[in-house]
Each structure stands twice: as C-alpha cells, then as structure tokens.
C-alpha cells in the first residue's frame, strides 16, 4: 500500500464519496474503505484458519470415505471409524470449520452483490451465526450415537 501512496501524482482527483454503508470518514477512513466493501478482519482471518483445518481434515475424511472405505460405508462402518479419538477430533473439527467456512463464504458472495447498509450486513452476520450454531449443535446430536459408544 505504501508504494501506491508514494506513486500518487500531485494533481490527484478528489476521492470519491465513500460507499453507502462505509464507516464514517476521518480517523477511521482506512477502516471505512476496507470494511465498507469487505467482510471484516476477523472473518477474513478465521476464513484462513478454517481453510487450513479443512485442507488437513477433509483430505483425511475423503481418503477414509472415498478410497479406503468406498463401497463399505454403513452405520457400523462409521461407528468403527468414530471409535478412535483421532476421527472424533477430525469429524468434530470438520463440522465446526466447514460450517463457519461455508457460511462465511456464502456471506462474502452475498456482500459482493447485495446488502449495502451496515444494519443489513450486521443482521446477516447475526442470522448466519445463529444458523451456524444451531447446525453445529444439530450435527453433534447426529454424531452422538457413534461418539458416545
């Protein structure tokens, strides 16, 4: 960013008005420009963290289901896998990470085209957090018969 600032010509045209919904200019101009069009720093960081969890977890999951156990999947086969703490950790972290990563990704798509106002964006974030939390609890409830054995 610094390089671009130093390349600014002397007769730069005035900056365009901040997008509707961008934070107030002044001391928070930089934050307004970036957060006005993007999803926020923590969501960005957490999207990367969950991406790494998903790459490791999903490869383990896909090799276990699509290569080793292809054609043998059943209620008991899942139970055999979830009998080991390793796969319990993999499956529970996959459940949490995939729900966050998927819903936040869908949110980024929505924010690219719709929802200009801060209130609408906040409402979407709250709705997705609620939906994601309920889905995680539901997923744990679904996995419980295997995990608790």
């Amino acid at each position: 960013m610094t390089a671009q600032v130093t390349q600014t010509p002397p007769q730069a045209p005035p900056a365009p008005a901040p997008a509707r919904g961008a934070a107030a200019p002044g001391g928070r101009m930089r934050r307004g420009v970036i957060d006005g069009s993007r999803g926020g720093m923590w969501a960005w960081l957490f999207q990367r963290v969950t991406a790494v969890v998903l790459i490791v977890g999903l490869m383990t999951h896909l090799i276990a289901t699509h290569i080793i156990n292809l054609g043998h999947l059943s209620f008991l086969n899942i139970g055999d896998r979830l009998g080991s703490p390793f796969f319990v950790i993999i499956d529970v972290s996959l459940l949490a990470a995939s729900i966050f990563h998927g819903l936040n990704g869908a949110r980024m798509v929505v924010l690219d085209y719709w929802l200009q106002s801060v209130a609408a964006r906040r409402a979407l974030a709250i709705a997705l957090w609620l939906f994601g939390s309920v889905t995680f609890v539901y997923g744990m409830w679904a996995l419980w018969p295997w995990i608790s054995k």
Partner: protein
Amino acid sequence: MSPVDATTNVGAGNWKGLGMWAWLLFRIAGIVLVVYLFAHIVVISSARWSGHSTLNSAFTLFDHPLFVLLDLLLVWAVLFHALNGVRIVLMDFGLGIHRHKLVFVACMAVAVISLCFFAFKAFSYIAAHHAGGLGGLV
C-alpha cells in the same frame, strides 16, 4: 490516483484471463460445496431421526455408479477449491505474487494428480462391483 482510488479500483480490469476463470470456478465450487455440506449433514443425521436402516439404504443408493461419478465431481470441486485456496493464502502472505500464474499451474497440477487417485479408485470400484461397468447406469 489517490490512495482511496488505489483501494477501490482493485479488481477493475480483472474480468479477463486465467485469474477470472480461477475466481469464477472457485466461487461456483464454493457454492456447490456449501449446498452439499448441509445436504450431507441432513443425510448423515437421518440415522438419528429415522433409523440406521434409512442411512444404510442411502449408502446403498450412493454405491450406484451414477452417484460414484457424482462423488468424483464433488471430489474435484473440493480439490479445485482447496488448491486454489492454497494459492490465495500464499498471495495473502505475499508469496509468489510475481509468479502467480506459475503458482496457479502448480496448484492445479497437485489437484489433478490427487484427482487421478480418486478417479482410479472410483472407476475400478465401478468395474469390479457393477457388472457391465458404466452400463449399469441405465
């Protein structure tokens, strides 16, 4: 160009070339995967709200060659999204920015090689367990 313009114009002129296809396929694969994720949770949870036999009959259906092939498409969506995601994370860390097309090609090579293992397994499964191989589709 003011610093603000420099920020807001990011992306202008990118609607072309390799990067456009990487972005578009990444997004399509992401949407497919998030829809699949919730369908997957519903199917696996059927053992809880319906019974073991419901889940087992779903697995029997998924052993059909058509579903094995659809699963392979899903694996491709995962691999493309994951490896293009690796490229994006590398760019975020400032790694390979000046060779980003090479990084993309390298990531896609890893994705294609990985897909070959899954495809080999899927096709040998279809050939071994379904008489007539793909003829079992109809």
